[in-house]
């Protein structure tokens, strides 16, 4: 087999893996958009906030320690205990549910029925707010996140492919784990949406708010639930990306990686987010591989958007988005 083709295959596989990671972030957007029509800009910051909280709980950091020290002149830094990863994840989930309740009670309950752009703006306000709170609570230095996920080259794949092609493929163990987790997550979400009472209520709300209200579904409850689920997705995304780079401010910027995925897959479709993620992941990696060196590289950021733009010109509602029926 020609060398370029083998390299291309390796890039393709890695693109798929990267796509899964993008899709993880995009999922959170889709959930909230579908259920409440809110384009949640704060999703990235939620990932950062949840990862910060997770590390903070695991390391036994005192929340608001810096603030308390500054005000009272004390010297407290940690409780001195270490919480095991699993328990810490559960506790963090609790915090994210609490956050969902607060967000619903204090913000979006007062903005029901507003135009989409106003709701979008409110989530930007929320993003600012969470960013500040997260930093004050846990500090802004880089934290290492280790919940026991494997990292590094997968030797099995490396050796097998070396036997086949004479060139070992590089697949990161973390990416494999992420793929498995994403698959589990999507399956769980689908089961939840299809077979549980709450899930059905969620779908009903997504279809038609008023009809859902009239058959006795509590919109408030469903929205809190959706924000909690989105918080959970953010936590998973935060763990994946945080393991790669350490938990720090830049984690909130992964939202930018999810936007082209959303455009491509459609804002309202969970399968769309997955397929869109895969297409974007593969597309940008292959473009960088094939064309990148000719134009000087670092094309991934804009190419993802241009790729999505090209798709949109042909399908303005995204691949799997609901067809917009326009009436006068």
């Amino acid at each position, binding site marked *: 087999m020609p060398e370029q083709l083998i390299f291309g295959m390796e890039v393709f596989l890695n693109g798929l893996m990267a796509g899964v990671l993008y899709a993880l972030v995009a999922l959170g957007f889709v959930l909230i958009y579908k259920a409440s029509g809110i*384009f949640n800009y704060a999703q990235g910051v939620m990932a950062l906030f949840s990862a910060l909280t997770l590390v903070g709980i695991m390391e036994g950091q005192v929340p608001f320690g*810096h*603030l308390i020290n*500054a005000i009272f002149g004390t010297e407290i830094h940690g409780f001195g205990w270490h919480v095991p990863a699993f328990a810490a994840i559960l506790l963090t989930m609790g915090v994210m549910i609490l956050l969902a309740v607060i967000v619903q009670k*204090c*913000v979006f309950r*007062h*903005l029901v029925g*507003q*135009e*989409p*752009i*106003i709701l*979008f*703006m*409110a989530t*930007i*306000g*929320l*993003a*600012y*707010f*969470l*960013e*500040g*709170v997260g*930093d*004050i609570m846990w500090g*802004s230095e880089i934290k290492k996140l280790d919940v026991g996920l494997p990292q590094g080259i997968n030797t099995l794949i490396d050796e097998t492919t070396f036997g086949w092609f004479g060139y070992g493929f590089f697949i990161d163990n973390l990416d494999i784990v992420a793929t498995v987790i994403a698959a589990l997550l999507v399956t769980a979400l689908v089961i939840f949406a299809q077979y549980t009472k709450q899930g059905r209520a969620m779908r009903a709300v997504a279809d038609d708010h008023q009809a859902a209200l009239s058959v006795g579904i509590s919109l408030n409850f469903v929205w809190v639930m959706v924000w909690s689920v989105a918080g959970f997705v953010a936590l998973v995304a935060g763990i994946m990306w945080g393991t790669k780079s350490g938990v720090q401010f830049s984690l909130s910027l992964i939202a*930018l990686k999810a*936007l*082209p995925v*959303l*455009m491509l897959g459609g*804002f309202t479709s969970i399968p769309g987010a997955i397929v869109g993620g895969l297409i974007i992941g593969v597309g940008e990696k292959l473009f960088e591989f094939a064309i990148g060196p000719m*134009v*000087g590289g*670092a*094309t991934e*950021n*804009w190419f993802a*958007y*241009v790729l*999505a*733009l090209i798709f*949109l*010109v042909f399908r*303005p*509602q*995204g691949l799997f988005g609901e067809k*917009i029926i*326009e*009436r*006068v």
Partner: protein
Amino acid sequence: MFYREAGDFKTSYKEDNQTFPIKFDRYRYYAVMFLAFAVVPFIVNDYWVNAIFLPFLIYSIAAIGLNILTGYCGQVSLGTGGFMAVGAYACYKLMTVFPEVSIIIHVLLAGGVTAFVCILFGLPSLRIKGFYLAVATLAAQFFLVWLFNRVPWFYNYSASGQINSPERTVLDIAVTGPNTDAWAKYMFCLVFLTFCALVARNLTRGSVGRKWMAIRDMDIAAEIIGVNPLKAKISAFGVSGFFVGIAGALLFAVYLGAAEAGDSFGITKSFLVLFMIIIGGLGSIFGSFAGAAFLVLLPVLLKNVLVGTLGWPTDLAAHFEFIIVGGLIITFLILEPHGLAQLWRVAKEKLRLWPFPH
């Protein structure tokens, strides 16, 4: 009491159609203009101009530009940062290639170049709508910044990739470069802002503006009553791009003096200008000013209060700034989703009747 229509009679169509039909409004407008042109330049110092007035004036221009596109024509754009970069780099190239031509012409030409680029990236808007379009304009943002980083011709092959604005004068008074007096910078930007605001105000009052608004309110209906969506959308992108380009050129040449595409015109700039028009009020020229003032002034004010007066550590103050700004945005939206401009309108309505509301 102070804000009366009674006795303010109009005897011609011209008078009835003027920008500020109410006498009090008109006098207030003259007073503000007098203050801005004849009082402020004599009392400002470096800090006020560089930290407060210049960013306010320049962002007001950008906000007016984006407001035409988003507020009046309903096309959400997140490419403002990239378009400002076009203005800045166009201005830089013009300044260095034609040093003998007046900087005023360079800034206007930079606006023209940006208008062209903006139209180019606005073409997909004929098919893509709403948030999909917003995200699609991000393609422009990322592509343009990458391009200015990548092609050395744009920064005259300098080793550093930064662009520096050389000294240029208007009527023998330096307006760019390090030896510029504070008042000269201020006046230069103020003139452009006044020009842009007048143009924008009159465009939006006329038939062009009504076409934009028809497209915004319902594009299919607008098409049926004879508004050409192609022309309306493209003209909105063009006009918006012109203003945004001017803002970018001024930001680089007058305010910062040196710039780099990714650093000064990144995605955060796009979001910042969008925040300004939403907080200020979509579809309102006054809203553009109010929003720019809010987002330029508030952080400076908060910083000075928290660090300067209360003596907090700078990092805590910076974090609290985020919390306060975020909290205020949410509070504003809950209290008045249509922005500061709507608050102002409500206040005017109240003042009309005050103190005898019945």
